């Protein structure tokens, strides 16, 4: 059967079970859009290509299925770059399909021509420029396989316009593309045995859940491991949800703005079991001090993570679910009363005295946690102070209900990612928490929210500026605040321009009432919560310092 290249892309998307794509049209991708018109695939037109990339990323994080974004050549393609980099840093399966100028024009600086495979090479797991129409179908299928297998990541396929219009022989895939499961081989088994011995000897063990644990769907196995040996669990920013926040063994977030109990626990531990964490600098601070005096067991799907940042005494690579299950089988049940006594003292310290009745972000996040306690919600954040407050004070109980740009820290991520998550998982409601400045970057995606009546609740923590920048200048630049104040935006009127109901609050009661009303309504909602620009995220560990070297701010 001969069909057009554009139709082949559509057929391949259907083969992969793609139900939704996020995109923005342009000249060189129009043949594909024409083919998409009659396809059983929902196209979500975003306000900007960056929004399409973040939305595909949010879709993938919330659902576990590859997200797909579409853009035209030139500026369309370059606008995807931040989104692809965010997905790359956090290992999210995204497939980007871009139009390219016709093959005969490539290299001639044609209108809207850029070398997008060259540009995205360092921020994609792999990318392709399709120059041979006969290879189009296999390339699209391969792109999905690369994106979803092993350590997931974004893949870009650049398709010149003439390839989209060429009549090509198409053979449907024999069967749905199957993922090759990771076998746990002999050497890994030996190392699992060694890990079990080391864990049995440890007096002060701790588990670090990273984003890889979420990607590997390893939450039940982490829970089993923690329960079996009564081991405290901490989570990186990316790992939130891999272990239930309300579980008594959970100590909270670890890292630069981690809970003190969690950071102290890692610092004092004599053995750490890192599951799907790449030991980012924001997690470890000073890497030498981080690992000093501990046995490090590092479990990851990607062999290159072992010994990359922190040298592992025992590195085990492969499918984390299987590895953890095998490890649990080899461990005797135990408890650890003296270790828990130490930890309990830190947890006591953690309990901050309730501040006065001023509206603060920690209180607000706590209120959201209480109101959404029954589950059924996904939390998406932007990047900055509010992100840290959300990570500290929300209760992320289950995997894939926490959508945040961790590695890249891309401001503007939150709203489009919330759009993607909401479309991927319609039976959960997305609560989007943003700062005012990040919201300004991609706030035009409220148009997408409104166009599809997505029931997203956007909570904008408005401190009239760049709170995290202000905090860094407060801590490290002698309070010489510069380029961090952006007051005077009427977000209520902004939302109203898209037909979205918004309210502004500046008290606890006001927020509680507004949030309750938002939950009661099935419509998109925006709540603008005014907070004090002087509020700081605490605890704080300076970059590069030991993770228990809290800054007194």
């Amino acid at each position, binding site marked *: 059967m001969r069909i057009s290249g554009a139709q082949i892309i559509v057929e391949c998307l259907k083969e992969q079970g793609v139900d939704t794509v996020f995109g923005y049209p342009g000249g060189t991708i129009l043949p594909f859009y024409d083919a998409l018109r009659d396809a059983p695939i929902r196209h979500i037109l975003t306000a900007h290509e960056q929004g399409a990339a973040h939305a595909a990323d949010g879709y993938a994080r919330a659902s576990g299925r590859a997200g797909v974004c579409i853009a035209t050549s030139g500026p369309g393609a370059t606008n995807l770059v931040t989104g692809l980099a965010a997905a790359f840093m956090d290992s999210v399966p995204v497939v980007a399909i871009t139009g390219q100028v016709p093959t005969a024009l490539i290299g001639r600086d044609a209108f809207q021509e850029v070398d997008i495979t060259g540009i995205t090479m360092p921020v994609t797991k792999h990318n392709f420029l399709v120059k041979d129409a006969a290879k189009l179908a296999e390339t699209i299928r391969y792109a999905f396989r*690369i994106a979803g297998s092993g350590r997931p990541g974004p893949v870009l396929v650049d398709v010149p316009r003439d390839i989209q219009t060429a009549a090509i022989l198409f053979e449907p895939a024999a069967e749905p593309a199957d993922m090759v499961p990771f076998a746990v081989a002999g050497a890994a088994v030996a*190392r699992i045995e060694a890990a079990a011995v080391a864990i049995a000897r440890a007096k002060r063990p701790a588990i670090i859940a990273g984003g890889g644990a979420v990607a590997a769907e390893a939450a039940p196995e982490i829970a089993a491991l923690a329960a079996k040996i009564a081991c405290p669990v901490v989570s990186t920013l990316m790992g939130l949800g891999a272990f239930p926040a309300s579980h008594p063994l959970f100590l909270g977030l670890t890292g630069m703005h981690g809970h003190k109990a969690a950071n102290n626990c890692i610092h004092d531990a004599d053995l750490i079991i890192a599951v799907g964490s790449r030991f980012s600098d924001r997690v470890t601070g000073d890497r030498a001090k981080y690992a000093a005096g501990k046995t490090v067991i590092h479990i990851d799907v990607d062999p290159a993570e072992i010994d990359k940042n922190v*040298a592992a005494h025992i590195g085990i690579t492969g499918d984390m679910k299987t590895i953890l299950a095998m490890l649990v089988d080899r461990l005797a049940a135990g408890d650890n009363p003296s270790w828990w006594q130490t930890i309990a003292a830190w947890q006591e310290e953690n309990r901050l005295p309730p501040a006065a009745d001023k509206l603060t972000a920690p209180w607000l996040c706590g209120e959201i946690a209480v109101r959404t306690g029954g589950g059924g919600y996904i939390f998406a954040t932007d990047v900055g102070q509010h992100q840290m407050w959300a990570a500290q004070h929300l209760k992320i109980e289950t995997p894939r209900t926490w959508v945040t740009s961790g590695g890249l820290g891309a401001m503007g991520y939150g709203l489009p990612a919330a759009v993607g998550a909401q479309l991927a998982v319609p039976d959960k409601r997305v609560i989007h928490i943003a700062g005012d400045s990040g919201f300004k970057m991609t706030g035009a995606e409220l148009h997408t929210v409104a166009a599809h009546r997505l029931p997203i609740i956007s909570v904008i923590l408005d401190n009239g500026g760049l709170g995290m920048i202000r905090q860094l200048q407060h801590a490290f630049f002698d309070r010489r605040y510069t380029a961090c104040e952006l007051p005077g935006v009427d977000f209520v009127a902004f939302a109203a321009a898209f037909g979205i109901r918004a309210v502004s609050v500046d008290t606890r009661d006001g927020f509680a009432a507004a949030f309750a009303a938002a939950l009661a309504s099935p419509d998109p909602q925006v709540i603008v919560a005014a907070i004090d620009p002087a509020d700081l995220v605490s605890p704080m560990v300076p970059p590069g310092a030991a993770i228990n070297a809290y800054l007194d701010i």
Partner: protein
Amino acid sequence: MKHALSILVYNQPGVLVRVAGMFSRRGFNIHSLTVGITQDPRYSRITVVVCGDNGILDQIVKQLDKLVEVEAIQLLPPETSVRRGIAMVKIAAGGDKRSEVLKLAEVFRANIVDVAEQSVTIEITGDDDKINAFIELINPYGLLEMVRTGMAGLARGASTIYDYERRDCYEQIVL
């Protein structure tokens, strides 16, 4: 510490950029790099000499292994491999210096590939040490310009890069 690595890659546009890009992006230092075809037109083979300790080498191998177009990687340690590069050196060896230069070339089993009134161009093949030694000795005679290829290498004995098996797990320091 220098290490030579042989990398079998799919012969596709952009593959060299992808491999070289990984090195520069992660701050790994390339001392030399050569690339050429193999007996199988589907593959090219890159020989790269890198500087770094065992930990860096371990990361280089693992990061290379992740590249979709990399099919196999083989270490070429000096004891168990042959490594050769070529240098061409143009010497301002006219008149009475010429015989000394030619004698030196003979000692190193280098070839004279061009002779002109005012210059001699010498081609020398060998491992890094041999080429470096030759250049050091010939330099005082008036080295006008030179060009070097990177090292190319093969393992000694019957073992080949095709014996490589993608490892699914690694020792603490694998190499």
